[in-house]
């Protein structure tokens, strides 16, 4: 069964460094998402991406964040200058098309900012 994959599974970085989290959505899906979950808290929406542009973003997704689909398979989340409070699990999700309602989540990347 097709699934969303994410790399790395765990990323440790120093405060102020840039990180890039990678996702490979399910093939032929058209809508892509990033969510995050701080330890012990809710899963929170960050950004949605369709047709090579951001379609919606939350207030969490500030200028330090960016997303890109550099090729036909990868979908990346970049945090330009990490802060301690960026430590969280980051989940990528994809959805098939405008008729498909279900979002399928990847296993997540645990980001630890020291």
């Amino acid at each position: 069964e097709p699934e969303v994959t994410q790399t790395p599974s765990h990323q440790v970085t120093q405060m102020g460094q840039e990180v890039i989290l990678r996702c490979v959505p399910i093939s032929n899906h058209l809508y892509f998402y990033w969510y995050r979950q701080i330890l012990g808290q809710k899963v929170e929406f960050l950004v949605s991406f369709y047709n090579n542009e951001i379609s919606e973003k939350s207030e969490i997704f500030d200028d330090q964040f960016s997303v890109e689909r550099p090729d036909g398979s990868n979908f990346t989340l970049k945090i330009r200058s990490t802060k301690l409070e960026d430590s969280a699990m980051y989940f990528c999700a994809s959805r098939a098309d405008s008729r498909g309602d279900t979002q399928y989540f990847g296993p997540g990347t645990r980001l630890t900012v020291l």
Partner: protein
Amino acid sequence: SQKIEQNSEALNIQEGKTATLTCNYTNYSPAYLQWYRQDPGRGPVFLLLIRENEKEKRKERLKVTFDTTLKQSLFHITASQPADSATYLCALLISSGSARQLTFGSGTQLTVLP
């Protein structure tokens, strides 16, 4: 203010019994509601989706109801097994746009005791 509440942080039941989890929301008019399962350190796994014009959905041992008047969804696991132990998340689709980001509840941690 808008809120999504899941009935309790933790629920313990005996194997073989029916587990019932509750999701209540205020000040939302969701187009649909989804239930996900999340195991520790893993991404949410889609279980069931129910739309605003549907009263009930079933999938194997799972049943979801949706009452838009009460603003409540109930999630039932019949003949529960220890392997059903996990955190269960409800998520609402709020946006009517094409992005369709999900807003999650904080989850209920279910433990099925052998």
